[in-house]
């Protein structure tokens, strides 16, 4: 019985596309001062899954490098920007290794391609459209590009779903 269970678990793990986020770009709304950018940077640096943050000051954007083998939580990242007193305009992430598919599970969160059925590739850039990441006003700007809900092929159980669209 135990043998079957192990096989079953291995089979399920095989279905699940593995992804590792390597980098992200977080654009910030509501600020124009370099002191404000520094506050965002310092708030992001408190997160244990972030290895490096560099702020682009002119178009306030945080360029983030993630630590390897750490659970990445984009909602914590958005909360850090809000803690600094600002809001998130967009979260773009770069995928590391990845099996082909239109969705993947990472840190118990289901990420799925809401734009089209095109399979993902390693190194792809995606725009995350979670409603706890960016404001409703920003989400509404991408309404036209959202073509599908979570595909039926993505059957795994997850704590929550984050739709995304492919950028390249």
């Amino acid at each position, binding site marked *: 019985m135990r043998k079957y269970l192990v096989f079953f678990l291995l089979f399920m793990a095989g279905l699940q596309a593995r992804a590792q986020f390597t980098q992200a770009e977080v654009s910030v709304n509501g600020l124009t001062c370099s002191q404000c950018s520094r*506050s965002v940077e310092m708030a992001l640096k408190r997160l244990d899954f972030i290895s490096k943050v560099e702020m682009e000051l002119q178009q306030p954007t945080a360029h983030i490098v993630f630590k390897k083998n750490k659970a990445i939580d984009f909602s914590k990242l958005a909360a850090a920007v809000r803690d600094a007193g600002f809001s998130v305009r967009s979260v773009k992430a770069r995928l590391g290794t990845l099996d082909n598919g239109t969705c993947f599970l990472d840190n118990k969160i289901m990420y799925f391609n809401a734009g089209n059925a095109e399979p993902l590739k390693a190194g792809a850039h995606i725009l995350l459209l979670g409603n706890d990441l960016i404001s409703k006003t920003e989400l509404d700007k991408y309404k036209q590009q959202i073509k599908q809900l979570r595909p039926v092929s993505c059957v795994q159980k997850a704590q929550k779903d984050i739709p995304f669209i492919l950028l390249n």
Partner: protein
Amino acid sequence: MKSATISLVLGLLLCHFSMEAQELFPNTEPASNIPKRTLGIRLMGEAYSEGGGFIRNTNALRLMYGLTPRLSVYLTAASSNHHKKTLPSDYPYHNTPERGVFKPYEFNGISMYAKYRFLSMDEEKSHLRMAVYAEGSAVNSAHDEGEPRLMDDTKGFGFGYIGTYLKNKFAVSLTLGGIFPGRFKGEQVDVIDGMPNIPTTVKYPNTLNYSLSMGYLLWPRSYNSYKQTNINVYCELMGKYYGDTRVWVTPAGVPEYLVETVFIPPALRKGYYLDIVPGIQFIFNANTRVDLSMQFQGIKMSYARVYPQLNFGIQHYFYLK
């Protein structure tokens, strides 16, 4: 009158040049907050000359902390050479405001302030924010002018509204608030030598405070590093509208009585004013902020200062782990 006109013209001219900063106003609070888990430390000073070599100054140390992204709390300790232990003699009939006399430099007390941001409409490089604030003070100085200030002059509480709009390099902010000062119960020295001090109670007037602040980022024209020193220019219009001060005195052998308004001097009567405060600010390493501003007489005048008044501030953020 002539000097007042010159001050007004000079103030407006300076403000005209600085019309086009940021919302880190030197003398008023924006609707934005201190980032969460960040400690801000601010040292402030004000100074003006009363003539005859008398320089009055107020200094304060303020600790600011971001409890949540929307709620900031401040604790301010103030000291000044604006007050004696007792009110001026013959108060309130004469000698108010009392100028050109020695007053010791002393600790005035502690005040608290809390600000809650209830609205944020953030866009790329712009925002509209609104906040409410409440303040309370345990200061108990022998303040002889009517106009109250919770930081260093009077005990009491206050609350108000702040609305701030920021677009690119320009920011404008409006503050409207009420101050509800308490009473000072103390004494004044009798004008007749040898007589005991006269118990005196002062009820400072409820006051409406208002300000309109504007700021512009002058330098750098384009950001590329935290090491660039930022230069912001500001123009703030600040004032108060207050009612009559009430004073009760109890000379020896006489029951306590309220001094009728007709006998009190202008500094204790109902009034209003609007000061013009141009300022410049330097921010080093995207953190340490130095503010310099000059307060000029605009419409009417405040009796709590002699114009022009020099304001100074230095502030630094510590991002806690």
